[in-house]
């Protein structure tokens, strides 16, 4: 698959691969956030599909259920859940990512219940006790999945899925390294598209895509960059938003987005042990999402190290209007970054509003004029 194909396939709800996978009788399980260990779905022989809103911003069906004080990303996803777009899913996994997403699931299931629906309850604080709770919760989920779909998940299945994901994670990391080069091999937009495509494929096949991309771009060099940026903040799967930033000469050399590197950074399985405990630890200990409520220093340090590693000139922190956890976290992060002399641009935007890009563009342009000197 070439980069153009990746960009194209990442921009659709059901990519060609997924369509074929479905028509060959494959099962697809939707999930919402990076606290969901996809290994369990793959170990069950199914495709984990991360819910997206694909920039959709029609919400008139969703708005009869969620309110206008809910973030527009969640409303957009709910719209797709209620208008039938997501009917191709064979099951749905809820996680308590935030109050908005919980509400999104709850309304979806109230109006249009999925045949298989399971709630994975992710603790908000990482402690020994909560880790134990999460481990057990993963086990319950696995049991529910096995029972409903009449499949078996052995420890070996899980370990092989973990190993497979470890390879994916390593290759995604490689891609981000190529994006971080002084003369980058990928644009931020391209990398985001690749990440997104990966959330809608079986990992064995996605690995091949990554191999190809890495091979194709090994010696590619992008020049003429005005400034290097880190993009962080709330659920952002709008490739066109990154495109807008980069079209003005900013290169997104690093990200801290949950559709981006947050989904794999720092996650490495150990050598052995109870696979559920391994998964629980790996996912809960490396969850750089502000829905965790005492771990700000971890998120701050992670961001600062990304800024240093990717040599970014500035940071753009974005959040969708009404997103509470990122709305507050972005302020903490901005204060911490500015203390270290790193310029920050905070953006509050409407999800997917392509025309909101106009408002955003002025700010980004001015920010680039500021940091590029």
């Amino acid at each position, binding site marked *: 698959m070439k980069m153009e194909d990746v960009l194209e396939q990442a921009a659709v709800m059901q990519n060609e691969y997924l369509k074929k996978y479905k028509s060959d009788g494959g099962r697809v399980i939707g999930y919402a956030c990076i606290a969901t260990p996809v290994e369990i779905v793959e170990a069950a022989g199914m495709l984990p599909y991360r819910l997206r809103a694909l920039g959709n911003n029609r919400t008139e069906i969703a708005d*009869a*259920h*969620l*309110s206008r*004080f*809910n973030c527009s990303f969640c409303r957009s996803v709910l719209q797709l859940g209620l208008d039938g777009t997501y009917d191709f899913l064979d099951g749905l996994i809820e996680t*308590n990512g*935030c*109050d*908005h997403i*919980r*509400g*999104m699931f*709850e*309304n979806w299931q*109230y109006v249009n219940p999925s045949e298989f629906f399971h*709630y994975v*309850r992710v*603790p*908000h*604080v990482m*402690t020994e*006790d*909560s880790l134990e*709770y999460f481990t*057990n919760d993963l086990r319950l989920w696995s049991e529910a999945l096995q029972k409903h779909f009449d499949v078996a998940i052995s420890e070996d299945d899980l370990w092989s899925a973990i190993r497979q994901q470890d390879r994916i994670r390593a290759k995604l990391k490689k891609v981000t390294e190529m994006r971080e080069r002084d003369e980058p091999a990928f644009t931020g937009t391209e990398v985001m598209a690749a990440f997104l495509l990966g959330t809608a494929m079986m990992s064995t096949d996605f690995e091949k895509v990554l191999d190809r991309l890495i091979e194709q771009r090994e010696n590619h060099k992008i020049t003429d960059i005005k400034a290097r940026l880190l993009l962080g903040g709330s659920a952002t799967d709008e490739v066109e938003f990154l495109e807008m930033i980069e079209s003005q000469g900013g290169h997104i050399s690093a990200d801290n987005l949950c559709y981006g590197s947050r989904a794999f950074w720092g996650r490495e399985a150990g050598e052995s042990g109870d696979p559920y405990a391994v998964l629980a630890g790996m996912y809960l200990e490396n969850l750089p999402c*502000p*829905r965790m*409520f*005492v771990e*700000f*220093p971890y998120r701050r340090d992670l961001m600062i190290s990304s800024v240093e590693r990717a040599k970014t000139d500035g940071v753009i922190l974005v*959040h969708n*209007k*009404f997103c*509470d*956890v990122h*709305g*507050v*976290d972005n*302020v*903490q992060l*901005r*204060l911490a970054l500015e203390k270290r002399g790193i310029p920050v641009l*905070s953006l*509050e935007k409407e999800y997917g509003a392509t025309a909101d890009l106009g408002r955003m563009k002025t700010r980004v342009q001015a920010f680039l004029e500021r940091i590029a000197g």
Partner: protein
Amino acid sequence: MEINQQGLFDRVAKIMELIERMQYKLSDEELEGLMNFLPPDSRHSLSAFFESRFRDTSIIFLKAISNWILRARIAPEQGKKAIIVPFNFPVEFIHGFSKAYPITSEVLSTLGVVALEGQGERYWDMAMGLGLPDHICSSNTIELGSMLGSVDFKPQAIVSAAPGGCDVNAKIHEFVSHYLDIPQYILQKPPDDSERGMEAYIKYTNTLISELEEFIGEELSEDRLRSVLGKANRCTELYYELWDLHKARPSPVPNIFSLYIYAIRFSIWGTDEAITALEAMVDLCKKRLEAKAYPAKEERARTLWVYTSYYFDFPNLFNWMEESGYSHLGDGLDLFFPQPVDLSSMDTMVEGLATAAWNMPMTRQVGGESMSRQWTEDVVHSARELNADCAIYCGHHSCKQTWSVVSILRKELMDRLGVPLLILQGDSWIRKMTPISVIQHEIEEFVNNVVSSKKKTKRKLRKRRQNNNQQQGE
């Protein structure tokens, strides 16, 4: 840059000093004399407490609250740790320590809005000045904004019980803890209604106890805890007495008491002052029940508020409603259904504390496995028990957890009980989001059209329509 730097806590404490010196019985003239000392905003808001029909009881209540604030102020000098807690944390937990004192941020914000000139908006502005989003919760942000931006009383630690119940709340606590560099202790709620959830919760509670013991430098004493929880049990009895009194038609419970009940729950539950205030409230309501006293000609609508009320204009909400014949049967914050604690051992008492925390408002409802299920159950139960004609949701735009599922609650209430839900919008603590006049108008419109129409004789449009249609047909 010119900004008045005096903090909310200090300013509120000054007003509380006035209240502490107040006599228990005040004539209209004496009251007027006192009120003249106050600036217009404070005078207006505080006047709600002093309606002659419940003035004496209000004074007992206010004195209990002022006592709490003034003791918090001197806590650090007495070697006690002043600990900020959220409303959804059982304060008796902290009252159980002799060397610690709880201060509830939402109660403080509310007192700031009620007692201060300018309603504490300047502290909100301070928080906004840091760049915090304007869609976060004012109930926390007003008080915490003061801590962040002014010269104010500084707590020594912050306890957060919101993870699982409210993101905004939990998030702002984290922010404050880092900004002020004070430790944050967490009691997280597993969104899990099964036994496993409660088991984990008891574990978390025990962890919190050890963390606090270490921070405070005091082991939680069984005797002291037993004494506090014994008093909490008495508060529980009084809570249910008031609950039962609410059932009568017309309601003998003054509207504003629903607020008193949870103000007590969130600050002094488990203290003698709490018992005194609750007993005085029960007494008054019993007298009103006997006398069938009601401030309006008739009770036109019995309204159950399903989440919060509005706190920026007490006279024009609680008292205005009462005088218009709209009974306020309590709101979601009253729905904590306390259980008597088994005082026989440390274990049973800790379990009692965990149960109390589990059942705190918001935690109990939207902090459950489903955000809508327990909330709906509690509202349906209360609407049925209290004979509500309608329910009202005060949609604070910050309360995303309830906004997320209020459509489900609305449908269930209608399907199961035929009780309509009015959805209002506006910040509960900041008058500038939706002016009280708009709120009053919407309540009246709703009651006139949806509630009273069930009672009054139908208009005779139907017959006229038939005649008109016949004529048209001819």
